[in-house]
């Protein structure tokens, strides 16, 4: 019995040491560095894994940090690719010597659209809202459906957890007539007039489908015309086409910026993301392929 214990102990020690040293394999070959938007992060990470499997001599490292960080880092040469969920602006590069906005090459890798959904009972009367109305519903200025042509009932407002990427896009893009976004409203100390904070898109769907008075927002893939229909925004329906041609207002493209035209391994990687396999990842992560 003692011997057994000793043997087991030895085996565990050896296993531990093996796992320890295996972490120290020397890095060799080309390295691609990527940094930026947390929205693009899941796409970049999964594509990087698959790309490295296919090209064992190339090392791809992916980091988050946000769109601004991504654009700045690629402009000053710190990384090879800067992920962003918004377009680069002149102000992003104004403090970087010798780099103009036009030096950044925009590689669009996916589209992202958010559908505003309402309960089927509301959808009978309300099929179209303006951005301003949505803004006012979420800030609490509009609290009854009859103010926007619906039934006389209070509005049950559904939100997502503050850490959600979908929520970040939503509060950034929903603006009132003066051009103030929900984001600005919150930064100025306002609290959104929400009744339910949902963990996932699917929870929003359940809440909206099981109510007669609810509004919520979800990724386009979660819309169900029968239980959780999407309304038009400023008269534009949320479809893959309207998101792609940028007429649908709560949409954006996801970018991988490079400094100058991508070459070598960086070009191979971006080509991979834009290829069929990469676009499958885009779709799996809940975004719209290009």
């Amino acid at each position: 019995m003692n011997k057994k214990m000793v043997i087991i102990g030895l085996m565990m020690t050896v296993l531990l040491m093996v796992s320890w040293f295996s972490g120290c394999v020397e890095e060799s070959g080309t390295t691609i560095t990527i940094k930026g938007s947390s929205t693009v992060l899941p796409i970049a990470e999964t594509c990087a894994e698959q790309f490295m499997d296919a090209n064992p001599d190339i090392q791809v490292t992916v980091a988050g940090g946000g769109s601004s960080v991504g654009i700045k880092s690629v402009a000053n040469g710190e990384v090879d690719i800067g992920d962003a969920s918004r377009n680069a602006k002149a102000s992003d590069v104004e403090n970087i010597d010798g780099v103009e906005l036009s030096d950044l090459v925009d590689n669009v890798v996916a589209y992202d659209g958010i559908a505003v959904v309402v309960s089927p009972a509301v959808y009978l009367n309300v099929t179209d809202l303006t951005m301003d109305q949505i803004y006012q519903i979420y800030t609490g200025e509009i609290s009854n459906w009859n103010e926007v042509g619906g039934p006389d009932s209070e509005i049950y407002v559904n939100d997502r957890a503050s850490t959600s990427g979908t929520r970040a896009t939503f509060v950034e893009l929903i603006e009132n007539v003066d051009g103030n976004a929900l984001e600005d409203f919150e930064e100025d100390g306002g609290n959104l007039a929400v009744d339910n904070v949902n963990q996932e898109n699917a929870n929003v769907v359940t809440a909206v489908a099981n109510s007669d008075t609810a509004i919520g927002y979800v990724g386009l893939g979660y819309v169900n015309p029968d239980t959780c229909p999407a309304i038009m925004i400023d008269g534009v329906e949320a479809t893959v086409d309207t998101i792609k041609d940028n007429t649908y207002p709560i949409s954006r493209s996801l970018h991988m910026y490079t400094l100058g035209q991508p070459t070598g391994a960086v070009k191979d990687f971006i080509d991979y993301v834009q290829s069929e396999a990469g676009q499958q990842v885009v779709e799996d992560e809940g975004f719209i392929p290009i």
Partner: protein
Amino acid sequence: MLLNSKIKETIVKYIFFLLAATSIFIVFFIIYFLFNEAFPAFQEYGFSIFESDWSVPREVYKIGAALFGTALVTIGAMIIAIPLGLLSAIFLSEIAPYRVRTFLKPIIELLAGIPSIVYGFLGATLLVTYLVPTFDLLKGISIFAGSLILGIMALPIIISISDDALKAVPRDMKEASLALGATKWETIKKVTFPTAISGISAAVIMGMGRAIGETMAVSLVVGNVMQIPIPPFDIFESGATLTSIIALEMGEATGIQTYSLFACGVILFIIVGTMSVVSNILKERVAKRFKGG
């Protein structure tokens, strides 16, 4: 031979000690980690962390609303679970015939075995939809829904521990009461129940501990809005609990938000830990009381 088996005995003893020590070590490790991670939040906010102000865009993470929500949800759950649980326990231990008892007890204990996500799922789909027309509400998602679900979840613990406590009351005490001409109800009211009261208190506290620590079920029905309802005791409004806010935001929290979520964990740990110690003391008191007969 004798010496050999003695050595064996010693070795086995130390191995057992080591294994037992491991679990204690893990507990202390968890406590250390929890307090260590929460410390920056207390350092940043001091006692003002108990105020109600939670906003990611403004990067303010004060947990008062969650603490209040937990208190409100738990009080509601106990208002539902205590009368139901105690009356069921009295029925089971004192009134029900043997056959009924052997049939009912496993079923009640089965309630405790249902995973909490199942309660949550039923709550989010059935209960919440049912509440809207019943109480003429805007939405079923509310502190009340949370209380209802948690009340049901705390029931099996309250019933089964109170039942044990009532059963532990010596038979001769009850028989003496009956012999003096007291009715069955008078005996329960004046003899059995008061004698078992510390065990029953332990049961209630354990049930409460479950309600406070429960996460999955409550996060699906309570609304997770980090604000104190207006008026504060409007149980049909949405609220958040310490557990639900951790589950909701832990995934992608950064910096001080993480520390504040750990602070929620510390508060939970202190509350539930105290309850468990108190209920153990009460249970020991029961054991001592009846030892002499």
